[in-house]
């Protein structure tokens, strides 16, 4: 995986990926930042401008699984994504950091589908904290394999209550409905809810503790 931009967000993510045993390469144009990253994380660091195709190639963009453009500047991140696509990062995923919501539209127009806004992410984490829930706890339960999430599309109309047993047959045992998505909007799966064709019922699936 390649991370363009070794600032706070890039470095924090690199740590997580290294902990998972991923092969990480960081690109940053600041020599001091590069030296510190090499020393602290022990990863491969390419010094240079990530909007430059030669720099991207020397980081191995043509064979990476994921390229993350995480500098503090949205326009630079968009350029990194476009340059990576131009030099053959076609099979890999490209994830772009955008701080200014207005840029999200630009990304979609340019075919960049995966966008993350750090302020929004932080707001979600803080909002959960205010209510005493830790998003990291939920995340860990998933990563550690205690729970999984599965969903089934509904092709008929009817009350959730009446359709539930059929839906449970499809997802297998140990499942519990947690949400219904109707055109991407979440609804609470109360038993009286009337489902429409196209609705997606999301189940939480319990796994044995590994």
């Amino acid at each position, binding site marked *: *995986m390649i991370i363009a931009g070794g*600032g*706070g*967000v890039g*470095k*924090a*993510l690199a*740590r*997580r*990926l290294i902990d998972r045993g991923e092969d990480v390469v960081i690109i940053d144009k600041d020599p001091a930042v590069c030296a510190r990253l090499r020393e602290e994380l022990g990863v491969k660091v390419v010094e240079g401008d990530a909007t430059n195709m030669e720099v991207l190639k020397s980081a191995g963009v043509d064979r990476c699984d*994921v390229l*993350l453009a*995480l500098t503090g500047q949205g326009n630079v991140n968009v350029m990194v994504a476009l340059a990576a696509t131009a030099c053959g990062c076609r099979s890999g*995923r490209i*994830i772009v950091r955008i701080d200014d919501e207005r840029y999200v539209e630009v990304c979609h127009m340019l075919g960049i589908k*995966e966008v*993350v806004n*750090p*302020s929004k*992410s*932080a*707001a*979600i*984490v*803080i*909002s*959960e*904290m*205010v*209510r*005493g*829930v830790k*998003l*990291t706890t*939920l*995340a860990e*339960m*998933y*990563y550690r394999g*205690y*729970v*999984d*999430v599965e969903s089934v599309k509904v092709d008929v109309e009817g009350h959730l209550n009446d359709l539930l047993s059929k839906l449970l047959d499809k997802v297998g045992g*140990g*499942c*519990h409905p*947690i*949400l219904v998505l109707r055109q*991407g*909007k*979440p609804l*609470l*799966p*109360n038993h*009286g809810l009337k489902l429409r064709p196209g609705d997606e019922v*999301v189940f*939480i699936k*319990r*796994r044995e*503790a590994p």
Partner: protein
Amino acid sequence: MAKILKSQRVHVTVVDKSKDVCERLAKRLDVDVVRGDATDPLTLEEARIEEAKVFLALTGDDSVNTISSLMARRYGVEKIIARIEDLNYANVCRANNIEVVSFAESASLVLEALIYHNRLVELTSLIEEEGLDIEYVDYRKGSGLPRFKRNEAYPIMVVRGSEVLLPSPELSLEDGDKVFVIRRRRKLFHVPEL
């Protein structure tokens, strides 16, 4: 953050030293604003910090966030969350019972979830944006699952130690069980009429 809290019908007062930011927030979000330095007692008092249930220190400066959080502690605010990126500052905050959140860590948590398709985190983000909340409730032995008014809330799972149990009418809860629920966004705190 102010936007999310407003949607939870919380009374929000924003302190910022920039005149432009204050004017924009007052106009767009209909929140109370106090222009000033968040480490200045007079500013905090003007924001009526003594009455605050929660204090969030979210400036881009770790030292400002640490100092203003410690001051909020002196003013008796119960729940304090500070945005801190530096480990040294984080340790000072934690030693004073101030919860710490890092912008970079939050972003990397969400990025990691995106890379590895963590649908639990993705759903949480979606839920947050669409006016629902995930909460958990601590339960005592022998009590059944919490009952909610229809369409108001819905239990999604029960965490017992490191085990996850699915909600069902037969499930008997034990001390320390955490019941996670998704609920329609509601008023988060009771704010007395002024």
